[in-house]
């Protein structure tokens, strides 16, 4: 299928069953696809919150999801690790595949999904336990048999926090600053050896210095992990991500809001020569 234009290759609807077919044939298309989403949608009761999402998330890259507030970015992100299971009345439809397997298949163990696809939240939320116990929580509940202190140290090192806390592992996690707590949450997620780390606006509660430290951390982590980040900060997306997905909100007659994927491409392209006028409007600040 040779695309005649960039737009066509991305906007052509594909057969939902044939999810092994990549949607992007260009030379810089993802070599390895972690998430293949075809027509993904989320309903909260009668209201369609997110609709028509089709994209591939590449391995060992940072994919950013941007868009105005309320356009379903976080809702879509939570589909990727089945966190929407906890919202009563939420229904996920379409095909969402993880390394070729249907994420919502009947035999899938959702807890295992969440171990392999970790998540960092908007506000740092360490457990009311010590720093060590926070990082050790994940391995413990997954019955880790090996050397726990070594694992905790390795996770804290990878989260660029080890030097700052190595002498106070037994202290309460709340003794740390906001930025440190967020890195602790990242270390906590790393400790269970995930393949993917989902980040839901991880820096929005932090000051600029803490934010830039976490952005450096993200770039370092992408060597070993696949990262998907939702952010309302366009500059952040431009700085750190390899590919960017732009969502927008459609409001129907009765006032119900539905989030839709407008454009998905390499970050450079999105920010310098976007294909859709809505994307262009958002990134030049005309709305949102």
């Amino acid at each position, binding site marked *: 299928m040779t695309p005649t234009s960039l737009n066509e290759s991305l906007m052509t609807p594909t057969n939902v069953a044939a999810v092994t077919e990549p949607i992007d044939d260009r030379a810089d298309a993802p070599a390895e696809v972690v998430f293949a989403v075809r027509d993904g949608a989320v309903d909260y009761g009668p209201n369609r919150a997110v609709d028509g999402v089709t994209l591939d998330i590449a391995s060992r890259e940072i994919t950013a999801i941007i868009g105005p507030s309320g356009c379903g970015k976080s809702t879509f992100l939570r589909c990727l*690790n089945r*966190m929407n299971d*906890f919202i*009563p009345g939420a229904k996920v439809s379409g095909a969402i595949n993880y390394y070729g397997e249907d994420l919502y298949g009947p035999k899938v163990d959702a*807890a*295992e999904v*969440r*171990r*392999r696809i*970790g*998540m960092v*939240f908007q*506000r740092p*939320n*360490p*457990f*009311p*336990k*010590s720093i060590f116990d926070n990082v050790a*929580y*994940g391995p413990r*509940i*997954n019955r880790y048999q090996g050397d726990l202190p070594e694992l905790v140290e390795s996770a804290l090192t990878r989260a660029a926090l080890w030097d700052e806390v190595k002498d106070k592992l037994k202290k*309460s*996690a*709340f003794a740390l600053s906001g930025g440190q707590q967020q890195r602790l*949450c990242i270390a*906590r*997620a790393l400790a*269970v050896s995930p393949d993917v780390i989902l980040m839901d606006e991880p820096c929005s509660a932090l000051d600029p210095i803490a934010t830039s430290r976490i952005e450096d951390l993200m770039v370092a982590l992408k060597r070993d992990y696949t990262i998907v980040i939702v952010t309302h900060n366009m500059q952040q997306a431009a700085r750190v991500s390899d590919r960017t997905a732009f969502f927008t909100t459609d409001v129907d007659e009765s006032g119900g809001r539905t989030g839709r994927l407008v454009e998905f491409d390499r970050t450079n392209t999105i920010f310098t020569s976007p294909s859709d006028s809505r994307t262009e409007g958002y990134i030049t600040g005309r709305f949102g």
Partner: protein
Amino acid sequence: MTAVFPRPSITQSTASPWRRTKSALMTSALALALVVAAVPLVLIIAYVLAKGWSSVTTPGWFSGDIPILSRSEGPGMGPAITGTLMITGAATAMAVPLGLLGGIYLNEYSAGSRYGKVIRFFADVMTGVPSIVMGLFVFVIWVLSFGLSAFAGALALGCLMLPIVIRTSEEMLKLVPSELRESAYALGGRKAGTIIRVVLPAAAPGIISGALLAVARAAGETAPLIFTIGFVNQANTSLFNDPNTALSTQIFKNANSVFPGPVARAWGAALTLIGIVFVFTILARIASALLARKHQP
């Protein structure tokens, strides 16, 4: 251009003297209400202390048997103290775990569902059921078949405590922020494990304090025990066999006596009982303060 309202200097209040006086009077009345409530409390504690002190400090009060000839003077209340502690302890052992599990069910497993709403509603309503009804109930379902015993009393007290523990546990669990649970799920945790390892520790101070308050209330109850435990003069440490006695029922029995001996014992028992109840109430406050300081933002 005349102003619509006269403009005196702002150092004079426009509120008429009567309005200000009325406000001051009513405010004083409110303070008076507090005094009206405080006076009985002070009086009761003072009288119980004054009249019960001599009984409690008589040697043999805590260990001695209750005199068989009830009109005789002198100590002790040993069996009643043992009975109160045993029965309250057994009731706590039954009601607190079950109540906690029920509270977990209400907040963690059935938060929005209709079935959960029904249970919550009836748990609330059950907290208002008079204690005497619980006593009659246990009489009918247990004592008629198995006789009077400490366990029967514990059953009745447990029924009283259960809805209280359920509701306070639920309220405390509700206060745990949902992001905490989500972080645990995002690490691959399951519901039960997350509740045990993350939610319960976070809610523990409030839950423990609520349970201790329920225990304090149960220790002071009389009506449920009248129908379920009977009376003895010697300490009975068996939970399931034979009648037993408790401080509250002893006070009730002796209060009406015309002889000074039993009345003195009643005052002493009242002092002992208030002591036990206050200890639990204070423990509840200490528990929630201590545990709350550990690992809190």
